[in-house]
């Protein structure tokens, strides 16, 4: 399967870097992950959840630590379990208390980062785990690509079924409830989906910048969109372009791919913000 995809990429793209399998795998991963991040990002911004997703990303540090302590070879499972737990806990707490969530999130943020660093740095061994901080998309395996394809499909299906409900919940939860929507269930399902997507991509992009990849394409798209369809389409296009451009640029520049991708996304944000400013001036 993966060989067929490699052949297709080689026949379409006449570039020097295409001859490396790790680049072809990375390209596949980018093409799968960036649209998913764009789509989830559109709703994360609508629902003012940018800090929330950042906490989920940083929880990976504690997740890895728990995995190491429990003796897991691959800490993905404990990472997901912790992120999902935080997602559900924060959502339920918010629903029950109606409290300003940024304070609560700030507390979670402090705990997951400091606890993670304390546990991982026992005996001075933190350097071993820096890969989680900046990520490494070039080491993605065919198995991981398969997992990413599965999660992309899940997100797509989830979106077809729940996107409208999420929109209604985001503008007014009582209004959503009056139309027979189970608000808490929708909130929890979206939080859990975000947690799983973020954690499964941590290895590729890294804890430090994963949230930027979630926020920037949607934020850039907001500058040029007037309705939900164009918002979604532009977010996906900008995310894909940043992903591919960042990956290729990082190959030539010898830089970390994740950060290079995020820089391209930031460039798109600046360009669209400029476009918006000019349009406002002209009107």
């Amino acid at each position, binding site marked *: 399967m993966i060989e067929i995809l490699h052949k297709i990429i080689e026949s379409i793209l006449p570039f020097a870097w295409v001859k490396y399998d790790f680049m072809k795998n990375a390209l596949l991963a980018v093409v799968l992950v960036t649209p998913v991040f764009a789509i989830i990002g*559109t709703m994360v911004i*609508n629902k003012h959840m940018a800090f929330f997703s950042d906490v989920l990303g940083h929880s990976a540090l504690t997740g890895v630590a728990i995995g190491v302590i429990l003796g897991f070879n691959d800490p993905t499972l404990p990472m997901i379990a912790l992120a999902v737990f935080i997602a559900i806990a924060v959502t339920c707490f918010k629903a029950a208390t109606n409290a300003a969530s940024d304070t609560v999130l700030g507390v979670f943020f402090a705990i997951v980062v400091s606890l993670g660093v304390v546990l991982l740095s026992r005996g001075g061994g933190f350097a071993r785990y820096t890969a989680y901080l900046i990520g490494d998309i070039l080491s993605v395996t065919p198995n991981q690509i398969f997992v990413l394809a599965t999660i992309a499909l899940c997100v797509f299906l989830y*979106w*077809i*079924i729940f*996107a*409208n*409900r999420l*929109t*209604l919940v*985001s*503008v*007014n*939860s*009582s*209004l959503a*409830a*009056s*139309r027979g929507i189970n608000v808490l269930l929708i909130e929890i399902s979206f939080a859990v989906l975000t947690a799983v997507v973020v954690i499964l991509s941590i290895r590729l992009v890294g804890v430090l910048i994963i949230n930027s990849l979630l926020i920037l394409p949607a934020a850039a*798209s*907001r500058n040029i*969109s*007037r*309705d*939900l*369809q*164009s*918002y*979604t389409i532009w977010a996906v296009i900008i995310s894909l372009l940043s992903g591919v451009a960042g990956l290729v640029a990082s190959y030539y520049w010898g830089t970390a791919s994740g950060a290079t991708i995020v820089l391209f996304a930031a460039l798109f944000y600046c360009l669209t913000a400029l476009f918006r400013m000019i349009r406002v001036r002209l009107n």
Partner: protein
Amino acid sequence: MAEKCEHCCTRIEGLGVNFGSAVILKNVDLHVNCGELIAVVGPNGAGKTTLLRAILGEIPYKGSIKFQVKGKPDGHPRIGYVPQKLNYDIDSPISVSDLIGSAISDAPVCMGIKMSLKERIRASLAGVSAERLSDKRIGELSGGELQRVLLAMAMTPEPDLLLLDEPMSGVDAKGLSLFYELASSLRRAKDVTILLVTHDLIGVAPHADRMVLLNNSIIASGRPKEVLSDDRLVKELGPSLWNISKLPEFMDDLSADGKGREQ
């Protein structure tokens, strides 16, 4: 307060709501008859919005809220709800069509709106004479326009019971009065039962069958004229608010005199 009602649509008995140790509503008895327009008035923090949220089944409460809907022997009524406000950023890329489409269709509007859905959205907006707003972003709407759009949503599909919460801001007195007229014409045309929460005592009076003065429990209830002349109204709302609500009369006097009058 629990007057006998034969065509009762919504029967609220002994309703109580607490948030922590704060008592928001206690012993509220209210029978809403079919096709009636009831105005719920009261000071800030009286529990007006809480009453609507209890009817929506969104918050836990003591007592009972029972519905009786023709053709639905045990059934829950279809409730249309117009909230006080929406949470969105001024630059939100959500159009009026997106908002209504999200509410009335399962097909994800972020992947495009089909012609058939566009037609349904147009029909929904036509009900409140707001077709021209369909492509506007919700951040571009005035308070009054947003309220119309929300009313169009609440009326699609046609509800058995319509709950209208007063907008928090952005709607002037003229806009409110237009809104009451619209709600009241919808009621006449579609025979919908309406529960309307408001501060605007004078504006709503001509449109309401009944006015209920709420301040944690029901203080007074009856025809608008009776409630407006009830002494307890001044007591509950405070003289200043009562004076403001008398302002239209004052203004009328003023223009009749043709000259200013010292207060």
